């Protein structure tokens, strides 16, 4: 019984945490952009994704995945933001890439 509970707990914790490969993909997109043309996020949002008030680029580090995904969706559809560069980036990111970006940003929260 005890080992069963431990297994369930382990399974739950694995489900909650994003796989390392997904976080790694997110980190790569942040630093180098994507092959299809999304810019490196750090170019505008800063090397630590701390944001850059000089150009209205908000802090990204530590965002909840739901917030990141909702923002990307809204920016891609033109409902949020005024920067056409960011709109193009949001449209360029595939669902898998969006998930990866969201997972990586959330992972920065737990470290800080």
């Amino acid at each position, binding site marked *: 019984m005890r080992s069963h509970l431990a297994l369930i707990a382990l399974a739950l914790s694995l489900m909650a945490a994003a796989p390392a490969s997904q976080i790694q993909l997110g980190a790569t997109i942040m*630093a180098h952009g994507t092959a299809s043309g999304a810019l490196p996020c750090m170019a505008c949002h800063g090397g630590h994704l701390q944001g850059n008030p000089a150009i209205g680029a908000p802090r990204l580090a530590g965002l909840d995945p739901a917030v990141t995904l909702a923002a990307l969706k809204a920016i891609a559809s033109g409902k949020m933001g005024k920067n056409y560069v960011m709109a193009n980036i949001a449209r360029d990111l595939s669902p898998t890439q969006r998930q990866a970006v969201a997972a990586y940003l959330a992972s920065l929260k737990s470290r800080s």
Partner: protein
Amino acid sequence: MINRRTLWRGGLALSSTALLAACHHAWTLDAQDVSVRGHFPALQFQMTDVATGKIVTQANFRGFVTLVYFGYTNCPDVCPLTLAEMVKIIGLLGKDGPKLRFLFVTVDPERDTAPILAKYLHLFGATELVGLRGNAAQLSQFAKSLHADYAVHPAANPADYTVTHSAAVYVFNQHGKAEFICAGLSAQHPDIAGITRDLRHLIKTGAI
């Protein structure tokens, strides 16, 4: 009769060959590239390479097709877009890519310190990108020689700090002679294939 006809055909064939030969020498630039041969002075500057901290001049880029761009790292649109397109082009150039250098000259040296500019360019992941920083005199001299405009209006509130700059990319051949301007790299639909073709031709032949 038959002979005459053959001769006439031969003449026609000969003249079209001559026409083709004439076309072959005159390279037609992509619609987004504008020739400036003879209108711009040769490449000449003295600035600091932000990656090495060393003073560099045009002499350091002899042998490379050299592209010059005036920008700044706090640019919200045109500069990062231009860099991203440029990196795409370098990738498309394949083995010809390393024969090119893209000089990113900061017009905002106050905020773009050497480490900041070096780190920024590093993000774009191409070793062909070179960050240059100069003092006010070095920058103004370089920009003026290429009729490039820029203005920096500092402000305490970062949102009010404005920088304006020409968005053109100036292309020089391996000997520092001005060849053409890329006007389309930050356009809505940059003709990446066309610009790549022009740059490859210049890399291979040394002139447009």
